[in-house]
């Protein structure tokens, strides 16, 4: 597709598709990449486990969905670390 011949709708679709492809949880401000905070939010984790150990891997807490996510997961509510959100 040539850029000059694209309509506004085409551009919006392309941007949204690309955002879905690049909007990884790793780059989202809703992903709590703070292991101490995870230990505080998951009751009992520090008693016989740790958020600083290997078993948690790259899993982190998404504070929006209150769910553990991996860096390459995605969702429509992505909000970039620099503050730019994906519009609905």
């Amino acid at each position, binding site marked *: 597709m040539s850029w000059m011949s694209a309509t506004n709708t085409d551009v919006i679709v392309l941007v949204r598709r690309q955002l879905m492809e*690049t909007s990884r949880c790793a780059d989202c401000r809703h992903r709590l990449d703070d292991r101490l905070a995870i230990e505080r939010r998951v009751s009992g984790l520090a008693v016989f486990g740790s958020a600083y150990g290997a078993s948690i891997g790259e899993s982190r807490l998404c504070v929006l969905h209150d769910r553990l996510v991996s860096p390459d997961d995605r969702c429509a509510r992505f909000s970039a670390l620099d503050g730019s959100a994906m519009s609905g």
Partner: protein
Amino acid sequence: MNQVTSELPASVRPSVSATTQTARGGVFSNEDWWSVWIGLLLVVIAWLVFASGSSIKWLAAAPAKWSSVAQAGADIAAHLPNYAVLFVVFALLFGIASTVLKQRLAHFLPAFLVLFVVSLLIFETAAWTQASHYNLEAPLVALLLGLVISNVVRLPAWFLAGLRVEFFIKVGIVLLGATLPFTLLVWAGPVAVGQATAVSLLTFFVIFFTGRALGLDRRFAAVLGVGGAVCGVSAAIAIAGAVRAKREQASVAITLVVLWAIVMIFVLPFTSHALGLSTGVAGAWIGTSEFADAAGIAAAQAYGDIARNAGGAIAGAPEAAVQNFTLMKVVGRDIWIGIWAFVLAWVATTRWDAFDDGVQAKKVNVGEIWARFPKFVIGFVIASALITWIASAYSLADYRKVVTPDLVAPITALRTWAFTFCFLSIGLTTRFGSLSKAGWKPFVAFTAGVAINIIIGYVLSVHVFAAYWNSVGH
């Protein structure tokens, strides 16, 4: 960047963040790796000092037996410089790890000082000649004291920074490797794996299908199942991450693991004693039926201490309880956590329902197995191989006369310190009021697994493989 995006003008083109390009992990990125480096560094230093004709006995100080308070006080005073140096060494090693892992060093150091001093007092209490008469084994005293303090007094937030239960137990397990012959790992490993696999699979499916029958979500049932079947809290958080469980589901599973693990710390050693089990058999049973490494080590060491003070009434070497526990738990169960995570992540992304909140889980890859692998096991195996290689140059008589007192015994003392930090930390971090309310359905599902786990673990350890575990214990 793909073809579609490359055609967009730069002003509307999404940027690729730095985090997508940075490598994840690394050999200093988690407590598992740090436990390997700290444990192996201590072992290598002990070896180098030993090879130069000396010993680190002066560093690895431990209280002598005492029968009066004056005697205990004199013993502490006499060894005060040794304890001070030992504190500095531990604080330095743990402090470096703490800093690299971006924990608060200013909180960790004073908290660790308190932990060290209280651990010394517990160590000293356990050295009382009448301690065994009152069941004052160091692990149980540390745990009970910690539980009472944390549930009566609200501990300050800075103090919690020093209570790294998992870190201390992993360092202790690496040091434990230096006291186990490598040939024993090779010989006992396959049986441990076979027994642990049978019990783990059965426990998982009992919890999972009981949970499903009670109407629990698949992901929740899986987190509960692996938490009970493999390695407790570590397994629960690993599987919660792999299947993208809700935070509350991970919290409830962890709460149930913590509650049952603490109950088992007391039940398993005293039941083993009542049943007259040898240390080797009891260690294997505890390794099969406890949920968390730290809790199991506490139970196994308590039973070893009971045996040591039983005047020969309990068969087997006292050390055999912790050794067989470790073989069963670490070699037989812990190392499979990455495979459990990989398989359940694959099942969750390909077979189970999509999330209703719009989260799209990425397709699982085999890197998951290594990412969640408990790396401290590598340190445990290397420490075992290193000491076995060193010992191979000595006759059995010289090993007992020279290597054991000057090399192995000081490493064992350092290990006991690490374990005591851990046991005290367990009690101090367990605030029952702050644990999640589990609800009766998860409780029933998990408890069904606990019952199966204990019964099958008992039958395999005490009847099917009793002769085997006894021979390992000797």
